[in-house]
């Protein structure tokens, strides 16, 4: 069983492995966590996820860019591949923050931003249903109904494909008015979100989860009222 000091060391090394996009180190220290009896959930949240949060900050500060984030994600997932089965085997259920359906709207294939947002949701403990890119509009509605997700997040980089967003918003409201809808992508801004009748705006991967949490809190308040 790891001592408190050793546990701290392992968590720090997991954090560093993600920030340094070192897959080998992430695997090494995930194994160490398991071998030495560190709680796998703690190792995930306070090691790997904590590292990814710092990566998000580095991206916001323009110290890390897309290549670095992709590699950090690879390190994160390399560690998760070992720790997740252990979490499941322990029977411990992580507190899921929420459930989100995410995708790039029909006609558009630019998915880097969407993939970064998806990853930030996952590290924050959300259940993510990724529909991919060039997603036919009705699939957003069908996926929300099937998964009962609180949030539908759509992305578009092209001005032509962004025109599909209000169509989805309308269809979603007609089907289930309680769902919160978040929009993101290069041509999107808060004015567009308001014009399209959506609820939230993801300026970037760093702020998407925060925005989603705010939307969830509003939803819960409405349910209680």
């Amino acid at each position, binding site marked *: 069983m790891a001592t408190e000091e050793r546990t701290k060391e392992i968590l720090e090394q997991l954090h560093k492995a993600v920030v340094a996009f070192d897959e080998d180190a992430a695997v090494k220290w995930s194994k160490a966590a398991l071998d030495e009896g560190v709680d796998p959930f703690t190792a995930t949240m306070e090691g790997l996820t904590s590292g990814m949060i710092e990566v998000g900050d580095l991206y916001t500060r*323009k110290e890390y860019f897309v290549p670095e984030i992709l590699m950090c994600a690879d390190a994160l997932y390399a560690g998760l591949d070992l720790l997740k089965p252990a979490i499941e085997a322990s029977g411990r259920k992580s507190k899921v923050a929420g459930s989100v359906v995410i995708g790039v709207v029909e006609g558009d*294939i630019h998915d880097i931003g969407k993939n970064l947002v998806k990853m930030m949701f996952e590290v924050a403990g959300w259940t993510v249903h990724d529909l991919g890119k060039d997603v036919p509009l009705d699939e957003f509605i069908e996926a929300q109904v099937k998964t009962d997700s609180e949030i539908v997040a759509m992305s578009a980089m092209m001005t032509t494909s962004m025109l599909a967003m209000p169509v989805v918003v309308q269809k979603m409201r007609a089907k289930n008015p309680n769902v919160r809808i978040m929009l993101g992508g290069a041509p999107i801004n808060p004015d567009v979100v308001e014009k399209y009748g959506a609820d939230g705006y993801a300026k970037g991967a760093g702020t998407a989860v925060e925005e989603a949490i705010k939307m969830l809190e509003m939803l819960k308040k409405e349910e209680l009222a």
Partner: protein
Amino acid sequence: MPMLKQDKMTSDERWVALLNRKPVDRMAIHPMALGFSAINSGREILSVYADFTGKEPQEVTLWLNEQYGFNQLPLTGYGNYGTVEFGGEIKMPSGEWSQSVTVARLPVTTEEEAWSWKSPPDARTAGFMVPMIMELSKREAERGAPFIQFILNGPWDVACSIAGIERLSKWTVQKPDVAHHILRLATDLNKDLVQYYIDTFGAERLFPFSTHAHTSGQIIGPKTFEQFCFPYIKEEHEWMMSKGIKHILNHCCGYHALNYPMWAQIPMGDPGVISVAHDTDEDWPTPLESVCKLFPNDIIFGNVEPAMFQIGTPEQVYELCRQCIEIGKKHKPGFVLAPGCELPPKASPYNVWQMTKAVDDHGWY
């Protein structure tokens, strides 16, 4: 054909004056309109990407110029040049929400596939973009156009079309030799394309429209640009200048605040033309003014936010145009009012007209 009442120059004459550092009657306007040109003429967006006679993109552009007083040299092509040429697949725009040609399958997905290419394919015959743009260019030559403009995606963008932006950008860190190999292939393919144009039209009349979307700071950082983009763009530009090409238009799409100082070291002609996108943040609050300072000898081009033509009010668009004109008018080598990137195909025509109106109100010299 002159369009505005005070016009003393045709569109072609205005470009000749600009690129020869002679006075112009009024500010030129370049709408960066491809899909919009098609829709404006009652056609599908597909028509400007898939007419292999070159007739459609030429016709709809000249009509657009006539209608709005614009100064766009007819142009077509694909942002993902390199995909088909190296054996991948692309998808043409179709359906209500598609805007342009997209990648359906990348040709290079492993190191082995990258190394299997010892040299690029023949630009004259590989894929179908070059035969198409060549037909358009020949029509332009027959029209007597003073400059033959053709699309020339930058080496990094071509490399992304070959291996994918995510894979290529990771390789710059994990396998830099593979990344450099693909960039070498991309640069040499571009040189081959330019040589084809030189052999067909002569160098003097050529005016490449070089696009750089994936070099945006929203994707890669300045270190990656410095090591993997700048050397190849510089090499390509120096080579083009040595072959007698006099002017290059570089369309820097997205956020380039950290890269523009490096761009300023790349020869683009006498003058060159550098396009500025609208992307801004607290570190880069005035892109147009900043770029005007960095490029004191080149023509500046930009930078109205494209989405505003679709979602903004006419008053908002007019004001954005007016602000650009006010800054650009002071730039001695010249200024072309333009959107920061492609005009939305479904932009409101009245919003598009605001460019003309703003130049008519404020853009006379």
